[in-house]
């Protein structure tokens, strides 16, 4: 950094001073960090709620809270985790920070809109948390807001619905911004098939955000109308149909799963080539599978409703498509493993997290097929098996990918290195704790433990005790990881511009990046992940 005359984005002085230079910044990098801090904060809020639930479930009967409190906890845990952390997480934090850099642009297409999205996001997030305390008690419907209960419940469901609506709007605007950025702002020479794969994943994600989110928006409005005006769309007594709500809800909320997982796949696709010092295997296949997942993902929502009352043919159709969508996901797994094959593998924390991503994602994916098969679904529907499955996908997939991303890009974002050893130890806690926390749910789920239950039969206690122990190990690892990074951000050793010998554009600029990213917009002449000149890069 010593011979770089440019001011980094962290030190840049704009028109506003102090805290306002962050809160009013339209710099995509600063907005990325604003999202990062918000995501970490709300993650620990929701993780604490999760931990309280685990403590409650350590023994049958009442342990530390009343049943109604428990219902409120799992609802808000779900709403915060899904709408505030997992859906926006990777795209808003790392997408904002690195999308423009990876495609050789100085900012996103609409910087002011980008800042506005963050404010919408914060409004929605605080409203979600506030719904715990405002009005007539914490909402107790679960994050899925199923009617008729969400219409009848006397708790402050409307606050939570409004929060989800606002967060959805924020998500739409971010997606819109990214699509336009990718279409209009790529560096000269960066043809579509020369674009790195994290931007490709964000592109597929952004289309889902733009095209699916409005459906949940109108659905939530309809539930609000049901509660306030008694309009009758979902009320059988007035001629409506509660299953209709489930369809509308999952038309968005299943694609939303791909909003969560596609950027996660994009992150690890960046990490494997760098730490194997090898071009990514099957670039085109990864691009096409991303788009295929986004496309087919629209047509599988019915698999959430196999037991809700659907025709035999509809169930057959949705089950078949669910199996189809597994194929592009599997293609990606083969690509990642083939990328490592024969490479000079450097097992640093980012790669460690990326490999555990594959491991956990595979378990989550295969158990997803158990749920997607019509016969086994009847046995496992609404049991702890489902809880285990989606935590393996969402936390094991998106969460571990988030950890991989933060360890991969941290030196670039802050210009400092973290302690590798502590990062590895934290990874160990996280990996062991995670598996101990969620794996027992598969077993007790198959044995018949229902999800969202406050009390249970004594025969499930072993599983629950193991799970709660896992929760404590996991939270220890998470705290250790965050402390390690926080210390590094303040006192870590200065990071070089390219600590991992990566070849994508973000490694060609100083760490931390200058305010305008690039002195001169680079001219792109080759495929990404071209390690031909790697000897030159070695120090």
């Amino acid at each position, binding site marked *: 950094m010593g011979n770089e005359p440019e001011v980094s984005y962290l030190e840049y002085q*704009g*028109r*506003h001073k102090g805290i306002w230079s962050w809160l*009013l*910044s*339209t*710099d995509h990098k600063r907005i990325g960090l604003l999202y990062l801090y918000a995501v970490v904060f709300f993650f620990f809020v929701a993780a604490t709620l999760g931990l309280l639930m685990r403590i409650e479930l350590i023994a049958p009967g009442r342990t530390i809270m009343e049943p109604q409190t428990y219902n409120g906890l799992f609802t808000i845990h779900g709403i915060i985790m899904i709408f505030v952390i997992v859906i926006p997480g990777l795209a808003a934090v790392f997408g904002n920070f690195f999308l423009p850099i990876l495609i050789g642009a*100085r*900012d996103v*297409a*609409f*910087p*002011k*809109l980008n800042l506005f999205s963050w404010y919408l996001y914060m409004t929605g997030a605080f409203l979600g948390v506030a719904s715990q305390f405002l009005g007539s008690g914490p909402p107790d419907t679960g994050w899925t807001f199923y009617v008729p209960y969400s219409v009848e419940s006397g708790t402050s469901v409307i606050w939570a619905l409004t929060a989800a609506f606002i967060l959805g709007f924020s998500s*739409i605007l971010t997606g*819109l*911004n990214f*699509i*336009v950025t990718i*279409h*209009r*702002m790529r560096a000269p020479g960066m043809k579509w098939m020369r674009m790195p794969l994290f931007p490709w994943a964000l592109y597929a994600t952004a289309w889902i955000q*733009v*095209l*699916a*989110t*409005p*459906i949940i*928006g*109108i*659905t939530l*409005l*309809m539930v609000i*109308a049901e509660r306030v*005006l*008694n*309009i*009758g*769309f979902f009320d059988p007594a*007035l*001629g*409506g*149909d509660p299953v*209709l709500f489930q369809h*509308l809800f999952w038309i968005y909320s299943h694609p939303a799963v791909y909003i969560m997982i596609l950027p996660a796949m994009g992150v690890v696709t960046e990490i494997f080539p760098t730490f194997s010092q090898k071009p990514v295997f099957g670039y085109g296949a990864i691009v096409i599978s991303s788009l295929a997942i986004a496309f087919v993902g629209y047509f599988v929502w019915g698999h959430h409703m196999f037991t809700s009352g659907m025709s035999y043919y509809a169930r057959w159709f949705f089950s078949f498509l669910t199996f189809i969508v597994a194929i592009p996901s599997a293609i990606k797994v083969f690509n990642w493993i083939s990328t490592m094959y024969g490479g000079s593998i450097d097992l640093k924390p980012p790669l460690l997290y990326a490999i555990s991503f594959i491991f956990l994602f595979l378990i989550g994916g295969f158990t997803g097929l158990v749920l997607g098969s019509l016969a086994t679904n009847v046995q496992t529907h609404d049991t702890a098996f489902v809880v285990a499955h989606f935590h393996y996908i969402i936390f094991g997939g998106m969460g571990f990918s988030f950890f991989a991303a933060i360890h991969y890009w941290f030196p670039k974002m802050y210009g400092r290195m973290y302690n590798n050893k502590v990062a590895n130890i934290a990874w160990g806690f996280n990996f062991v704790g995670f598996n101990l926390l969620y794996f027992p749910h598969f077993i007790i789920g198959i044995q018949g433990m229902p999800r969202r239950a406050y009390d249970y039969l004594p025969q499930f206690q072993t599983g629950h005790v193991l799970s709660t122990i896992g929760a404590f190990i996991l939270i220890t690892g998470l705290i250790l990881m965050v402390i390690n990074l926080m210390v590094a951000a303040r006192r870590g050793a200065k990071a070089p511009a390219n600590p991992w010998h990566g070849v994508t554009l973000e490694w060609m600029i100083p760490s931390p990046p200058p305010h*305008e990213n690039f002195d001169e917009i680079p001219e792109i002449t080759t495929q990404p992940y071209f390690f031909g000149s790697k000897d030159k890069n070695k120090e």
Partner: protein
Amino acid sequence: MADHPTHTEHIDSETGKLGMWLFLFTEIFLFSGLFLVYAIFRAKYSADFHVAAAELNAFIGTINTVFLLVSSMTAAMALTAIQKGNKRLTLILLLVTLLLAALFLVNKYFEWSHKFEYGIYPGSPVLKNMSHGELLFFGLYYMMTGLHALHVVIGMILLTINVVKVKLGTVNSERYLILENSALYWHLVDLVWIFLFPLLYLIT
């Protein structure tokens, strides 16, 4: 913000329009949720829907359709006028558009209050005594026209901003992206109504 003087002040027109088109997609999807619900209940209770639609005043609906169609035309003409640098004509056309939009809302107001007089509003005792299909029809009627009216109001706010900007000269024959995007939005408002009108008023 002055942070990026080179990038935020002048979003080029292609970029701005692409963003607007995407936003219009999301608006169409927002309404499509309601159209989907309409289609399902229409199929289930088609006879009731016919009866209920007879309650709506097709004459007022037609007048409103004309208002919106003409206002869409004047919005498009305002855009052409600013491209040709005719500031006065642009202002007149924008004000005519606003006037027609306001007339649309006035009509809507009388239409709704007329229904209210008969006790037809969501959750009313009169409605509860009607058949399920009629009840759902009026639920959809209020929700769809209500959401549409909200969009009319937002469109009017956008057009008013344009009136001010044209007057100040910040929207001129060189830079008219915001006017172009507002006109696009206004056409969407019109387009949604083109679908609402036959589905609600003309199926008797």
